[in-house]
């Protein structure tokens, strides 16, 4: 599931239960977060480990490739 290129995450807020699990496994520096205890939305993630997507109990996180977003 690991991608090599930078990605941008999107949170399905209607499914998110604000549990913080995505942030807990996130290896990014401090501040890669949203206002609601999730990982940052609409920001480039160059680690792209996808741990956040995987751990989400309700699969509320999806991503697009950064390159696709920029186009």
């Amino acid at each position: 599931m690991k991608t090599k290129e930078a990605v941008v995450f999107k949170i399905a807020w209607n499914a998110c239960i604000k549990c913080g699990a995505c942030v807990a496994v996130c290896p990014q520096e401090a501040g890669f977060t949203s206002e609601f205890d999730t990982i940052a939305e609409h920001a480039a993630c160059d680690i792209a480990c996808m741990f956040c997507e995987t751990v989400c109990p309700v699969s509320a996180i999806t991503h697009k490739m950064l390159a696709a977003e920029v186009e």
Partner: protein
Amino acid sequence: MPDSSSTITMPEYDLVVIGSGPAGATTARFAAANGARVLLVDKKQELGAPIQCSGAVSHNALEQAGVYPSPEFIHDAIYGFAIYNGKGEKKIIDYRKLKPDEYGTKEGTIPLGYVVDRRRFDRYLATQAERAGAEIWLKTAATGFRVMENGSCEVDLLKFNEPVTIRAKVIVGADGVQSQVGKWAGLKTHIKLSELASCLQFVVDGVETAGLLEIVTGNEWAPGGYAWVFPKGHGYAEIGLGVTRTMCTENAQEYLDRFIKQSFFKERFKNCRILEIQGGGVPLAAPLKIQYADNIVLVGDAARHVNSITGGGIHTALSSGKIAGEFLAQLILSGKPATKTNLKGYQDNWLKAMGNNMWKLYRVKRAIFDTVDVVKRDEQLYATMSGYFSTDSEYKKI
């Protein structure tokens, strides 16, 4: 408006505690009670919400932290456990029968533990901190800090969207499983995917319970974790589970759905109606090896103070909060600077009181989940859980 940051007198505290959950509020309370000037901040408008926890805590844990088991926050009383293997075979550990003179409902006996309402429990603990002399700011997020030349800190806060800077000697990171304060300090706080239990629970109506915490083990229902049915008071129950995602084929929601519809409890759950949905990330990880840095200490989930076998974190949070609060007040009143070297004493005290046992539990958990053979792993988890909650358990005090 002129730039007056250097001329305005900043609010000054000995301690700023970031996050008012059980760990933060308890740290604030014991620090204030021991003479420190404490500011407790939380970004939420209502403490404890959204709930990320089943709320089970032992009577002993509350007593040790000086928390009176008040009806204000107790949903239900617990008298023991029922541990199930994947096939539905069970071991009942009912302290009402095993130790009838100590535990029960009759006069002179007490419950073994409780399921608490985390909204009211967290507010109660914050009230205790406030009554001990701590100041509390809600709707206040911490955004960053700087160490000053005199060894103190400036901490940037956002209070009702207004930037406020305060001075404090020590920052306590009690900001939970998603801790950012630890990252500020450069501590490696992120949890391995293989060590964070992905948890989901429903508060339901229409499911009978009998004063026991019911724990269902087995790879079929909850790989790398367990499923549970807890009494929630007033006829309600909690049905939930935690799974280790690296051992799963689907997310927690799918496993919970399957547990409700297909497990040996499917008849019992047939008429259950979901009233609340809650989830959380529970670190089944080792405690952080280093829980302090210059001017910073971490407590509770932020420091991974969670029991790796049960996933319980309230007792460990209360306990580390008490240790941190007492230690920090003493350090500050002694006039010593809050350097990394001086703050190490907090972790030393914690290791002695509870940390060494938590490390031991982590190793037990690792040995179980590292077992490749699923049948053996299931047997080990069932045996370990049954042993853990028995009357002669060596871990009774965690």
